[in-house]
């Protein structure tokens, strides 16, 4: 089934917005998500294709409402739970 990430040619999105002189990461947490993902893939906890797949399986409304690194973090937590590395409860802080 066509997934929400597959947007090539899709109509209805707003004009492209540029941010002047934008930093590599807008917040520390973004940089940490970036680094975490590399480390987890490097360690073989999951592979890059599984990671992309996890992003694509986000509910469409959530996908479109999430920022880029929010999508990444969502995929990471999904995979960690799926692979039995951490539980949803642990990650929720409970």
């Amino acid at each position: 089934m066509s997934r929400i990430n597959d947007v090539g040619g899709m109509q209805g999105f707003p004009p492209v917005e540029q941010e002047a002189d934008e930093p590599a990461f807008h917040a520390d947490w973004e940089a940490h998500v970036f680094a975490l993902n590399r480390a987890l893939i490097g360690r073989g906890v999951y592979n890059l294709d599984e990671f992309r797949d996890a992003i694509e399986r986000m509910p469409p409304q959530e996908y479109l409402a999430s920022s880029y690194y929010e999508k990444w973090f969502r995929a990471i937590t999904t995979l960690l739970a799926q692979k039995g590395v951490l539980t949803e409860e642990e990650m929720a802080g409970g």
Partner: protein
Amino acid sequence: MSGDHTGPAATIAARVRHVEGLLEQRGLVDSQELDRALEAFLARASPANGARLVARAWLDNGFRGRLLADGNAALPELGLSMGGGLQEQRLNVVENTEDSHNVIVCTLCSCYPIALLGPSPTWYKSEAYRSRVVRDPRGVLREFGFEPGPEVKINVWDSSAESRYMVLPRRPAGTGDLDEPALAALVTRNGLIGVAPV
């Protein structure tokens, strides 16, 4: 102060810290190692690398040919590489000419030569860019203030596999006197993606 790390009301920053902490407890990541890797990545990868390659290609026709034929093999001539990431990816450099212009996108996610150029701009990752540029590249370029003439053929590269793409922009007119660093200073990240002439 830092926010409750429980439930949906928690800030994402707190949730990321929490998960990183749990992974560290499990011995799966090391926070110091994460910081080191991040620093190393940001130090080596930036659009300035792309600008240097372009300036050298403008000045040295032999290098230009080698860069276009095999980007990965040519990068070390300037002390650069596509390594340092998860896996070294093939770099394809595509050249703008008088009658052809190239634009890069990854419609499916946001693939980009980050090992060389650093993180892509936020707009490159947006659904707005990814959806429109394959269907209406002239419209998107117009949003960036760039309107190639109708005689210029536009090709959009969708980086859908393992190779990564960078544009070799045309050398602007009237730059015959400039040295390599001055030429490199003319090259923008937007030019390397193809939404600007240089």
